[in-house]
């Protein structure tokens, strides 16, 4: 092993020099000769038939090249890149629209201003129908979104979610028995986990350049999944995938919303093919509320049955999950991800029913955490309510029900095997550091002065680092692509003839710092300085086959592949160095850009010399193949299971209901850490998005299905002044499903945060009789809850 230890160390990001100088290349920054711009005509109705479309005025406008409607693209079929349950989406609405903002026509013009001018001149006649917007009404199925099809696509059940694979005993009879006992309490709350608009600051952007000479297309897209997108484009147009180059350059935040194959990606390719010119489209912020996926959107009743001493005998969740009008990449699989962590960190009987229901609204899919924040929210909120009901400290109730560290690996109530964990030690570390007892004393003292302070706590467990590949059995694929079918990771490590190193990986970042982290892995393994390592990604033809960046999976899967490739390169390089230094390969050590013989620091050979030899096979040991590169595909035996505990101190203004988040602590466990600075950064942002759900954000529809919060004026993201500094710490329980011992950290903060805040706010006002307040805890809701409790 090398002695150059950059693993676990703080290294400034390799990504930053370009980004801090405005030299990053996002899709909208890339320019192609002769490019045109597209704009969409979107439905103002949530449910309507389209009786006619008049494009003549638009076509007459100077600078307009084409106006396309369903008729033009019908031959492309339906978007195949969607989960196999639910209704597939046509590229342009074909006679019927199912949500406000659904694209009905596409205009292509000289530039985006003219394209919008022309879009305004496309006249569409609609015959509006009844929109199904209310989730409970949709579940009741009185009025159907898609004629003749039940609004409920399927119901995920906690003990039998995978027919033929996971069939556990039904916990309901046992829970029912516990409910009927005299010495138990039953605590139940209906809670909304509201819809969110993911809102990466970079709107989605696409640019296609179809070359009829080569019979190939290049597509730049702000995407988390360039390979899967390339596969889909190949299938849609009936061309081989090796004729499709999808490039995801700098991606300005993803959070799951760019984890989809969207109609516009196909449509710009189509337009480019038709017109023989590059065509681009860049989403406006308002369009992002219609043209990209949304997240969350559950209404559920959580129930705990337990003893008066804090032992939980049953946890039940019955929830309706809003899928929106169409199914996209994951859609119905998002609640399933929640189900995977339904029992959280607890050894408790768990009964789960998640009803996946369609409505006349834009599609929901993966948004940071994707099902797991919802699951953690319901569980950790109802545990708090249960603790309050029996008069026990919520920390103690949690400890009484945790899996113990010596029980791992454990199989949970939903049939998942969790690798490792020491939950009680993690919670204790948090409580000690935050001064939990002092905080509660501070809260009580403030209360006696009429001030409303609250202390809130949450544990969480996350499932991430997907694979294992076996999950593919649940999934879907297109032309051998698709996501679960390739739930593995890839990495190519090549030492160049001059001794520098190129690393090419199957997933790419949208802010997660792959370039730096992967360079650390390779620098550590090869002893090549960080500055001599370049990490490439995001090109469907030049990068090794990859699945994409989502589900906090890159480091555990693709990172491991790169680690293994690094090991193989090092082994070969040791043989070459041994040959050059006349020493045994096992005696070769790598550090500071060169190899030397153990115990003889003077007997050294630089990486450049090793590499030079590698590319001149006649200098190599007899029979050795030339070159110095390795490509590895890694398929993990299981997912990983990060966990942690979060704590917040809030103050509520008793007159206005305004919530001030005063302090926030988190102790997370993501296994081994490669770059603590980057891991902390992921947590900061994740926590901020959880706080944002708790306090600020909500996608609100009126009864006609109009999105009332399509602009940032009405969808308030937290600004710097709305958040405090976050106090972080970690415990380290390495994963055993990959040799790096890493788990993943991209979503953990979000999964832990929302209920931490709500628990704190409810704690602040619980003595007034408040039991629950639905998110977002805008001042009006907090005030109303206090009022209602008082009256």
């Amino acid at each position, binding site marked *: 092993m090398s002695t150059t230890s950059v693993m676990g160390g*703080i290294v*400034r*990001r390799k*990504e*930053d*020099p370009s*980004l*801090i*100088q*405005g*030299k*990053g*290349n*996002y899709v*909208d*920054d890339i*320019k192609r000769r002769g490019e045109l711009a597209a704009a969409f005509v979107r439905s103002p109705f949530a449910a309507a038939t389209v009786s006619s479309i008049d494009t003549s005025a638009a076509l007459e406008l100077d600078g307009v090249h084409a106006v396309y409607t369903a008729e033009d693209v019908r031959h492309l079929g339906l978007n195949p890149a969607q989960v196999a349950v639910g209704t597939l989406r046509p590229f342009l609405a074909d006679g019927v629209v199912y949500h406000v903002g659904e694209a009905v026509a596409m205009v292509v013009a000289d*530039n985006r*201003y003219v394209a919008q001018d022309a879009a305004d001149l496309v006249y569409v006649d609609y015959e509006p129908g009844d929109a199904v917007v209310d989730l409970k009404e949709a579940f009741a199925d009185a009025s159907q979104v898609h004629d003749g099809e039940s609004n409920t696509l399927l119901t995920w059940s906690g003990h039998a979610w995978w027919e033929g694979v996971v069939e556990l005993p039904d916990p309901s009879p046992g829970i029912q028995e516990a409910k009927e006992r005299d010495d138990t309490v039953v605590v139940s709350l209906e809670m909304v986990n509201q819809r969110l608009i993911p809102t*990466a*600051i*970079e*709107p989605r952007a696409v640019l296609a350049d179809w070359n009829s000479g080569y019979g190939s297309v290049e597509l730049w897209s702000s995407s988390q999944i360039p390979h899967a997108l390339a596969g889909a484009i190949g299938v849609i147009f009936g061309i081989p995938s090796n004729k499709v180059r999808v490039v995801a350059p*700098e*991606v*300005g*935040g*993803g959070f799951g919303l760019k984890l989809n194959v969207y109609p516009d990606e196909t449509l710009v390719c189509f337009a480019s093919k038709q017109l023989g010119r590059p065509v681009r489209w*860049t989403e*406006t*912020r*308002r369009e992002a509320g219609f043209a990209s996926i949304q997240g969350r959107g559950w209404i559920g009743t959580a129930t705990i049955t337990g003893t008066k001493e804090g032992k939980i005998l049953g946890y039940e969740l019955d929830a309706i999950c809003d899928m929106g009008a169409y199914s996209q990449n994951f859609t119905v699989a998002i609640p399933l991800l929640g189900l995977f962590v339904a029992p959280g960190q607890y050894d408790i009987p768990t009964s789960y029913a998640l009803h996946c229901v369609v409505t006349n609204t834009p599609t929901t899919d993966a948004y940071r955490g994707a099902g797991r924040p919802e699951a953690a929210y319901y569980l950790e909120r109802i545990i708090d309510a249960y603790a309050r009901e029996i008069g026990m400290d919520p920390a103690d109730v949690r400890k009484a029900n945790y899996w113990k560290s010596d029980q791992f690996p454990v199989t949970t109530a939903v049939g998942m095997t969790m690798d490792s964990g020491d939950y009680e030690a993690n919670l204790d570390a948090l409580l000690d*550091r935050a001064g939990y007892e002092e905080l509660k004393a501070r809260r009580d003292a403030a209360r006696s002065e009429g001030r409303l302070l609250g202390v809130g706590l949450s544990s969480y467990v996350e499932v991430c680092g997907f694979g294992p590949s076996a999950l593919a059995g649940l999934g879907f694929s297109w032309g051998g692509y698709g996501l679960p079918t390739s739930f593995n990771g890839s990495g190519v490590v090549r030492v160049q003839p001059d001794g520098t190193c190129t690393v090419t990986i199957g997933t790419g*970042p949208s*802010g*997660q710092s792959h370039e730096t982290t992967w360079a650390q892995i390779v620098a550590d393994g090869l002893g090549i300085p960080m500055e001599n390592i370049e990490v490439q990604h995001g090109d469907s033809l030049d990068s090794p086959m990859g699945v994409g960046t989502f589900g906090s999976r890159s480091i555990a899967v693709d990172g491991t592949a790169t680690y293994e490739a690094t090991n193989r390169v090092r082994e070969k390089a040791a043989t070459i160095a041994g040959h050059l230094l006349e020493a045994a390969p096992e005696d070769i050590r790598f550090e500071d850009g060169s190899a030397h013989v153990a115990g003889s620091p003077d007997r050294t050979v630089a990486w450049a010399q090793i590499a030079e030899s590698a590319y001149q096979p006649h200098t190599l040991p007899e029979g050795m193949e030339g070159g110095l590169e390795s490509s590895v595909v890694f398929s993990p035996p299981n997912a990983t299971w990060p966990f942690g505990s979060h704590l917040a101190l809030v103050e509520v203004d008793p007159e206005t209901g305004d919530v001030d988040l005063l302090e926030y602590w988190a102790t997370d466990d993501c296994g081994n850490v490669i770059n*603590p*600075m980057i891991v*902390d*950064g992921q947590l*900061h*942002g*994740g*926590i*901020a*998005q959880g*706080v944002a759900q708790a306090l600020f954000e909500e996608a609100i529809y009126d009864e006609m299905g109009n999105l009332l919060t399509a*602009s*940032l*004026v009405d969808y308030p*993201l937290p*600004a*710097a*002044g709305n*958040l405090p*500094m976050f106090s*972080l*710490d*970690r*415990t380290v329980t390495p994963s055993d499903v990959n040799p790096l011992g890493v788990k993943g950290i991209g979503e953990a903060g979000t999964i832990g945060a929302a209920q931490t805040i709500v628990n704190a706010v409810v704690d602040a006002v619980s003595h007034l009789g408040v039991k629950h307040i639905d998110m977002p805890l805008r001042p009006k809701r907090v005030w109303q809850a206090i009022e209602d409790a008082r009256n």
Partner: protein
Amino acid sequence: MEISISVNGTDRRSNVEPRTLLVHYLRENLGLTGTHVGCDTGYCGACTVIVDGRTVKSCTMLAVQADGRAVQTIEGVANGEELHPVQEGFWERHGLQCGFCTPGMIMSSIALLEKNDNPSEDEIRHGIEGNLCRCTGYHNIVRSVQYAGAKMRGEEPQGASQEVTS
């Protein structure tokens, strides 16, 4: 119409439609793509540039309004190879992740520190309230500005690149 704008110290003359937004003029006409567009309503601040010494949102300004004025963009912040202390701060303190809000955030931070090179945490948070970041939770942005402030005061920045206590 004909406009003349000093952009990063260079006089640029162009013919634009009056409806051209300043941000599109910078990006499309001048190829200065460091200034980004993140929303429609002047809320996100990704398009922040400095016009005649003050930060503005270039998505909510017409290019013709900047006629005869001096515009500074992210591309004009570094002195050749030498980074501005604010750029250095963002690099040293991990003040960016996806980087999309970063140019605007840096412009606002520069304007803030030019008025007050020793702001409190609260002053920093209010000083960048017109710039939304979705990645960092602002924690490390605040620390980046603190780093830059120290540099601009000629002091050695305090603290480490990360703060985990264990």
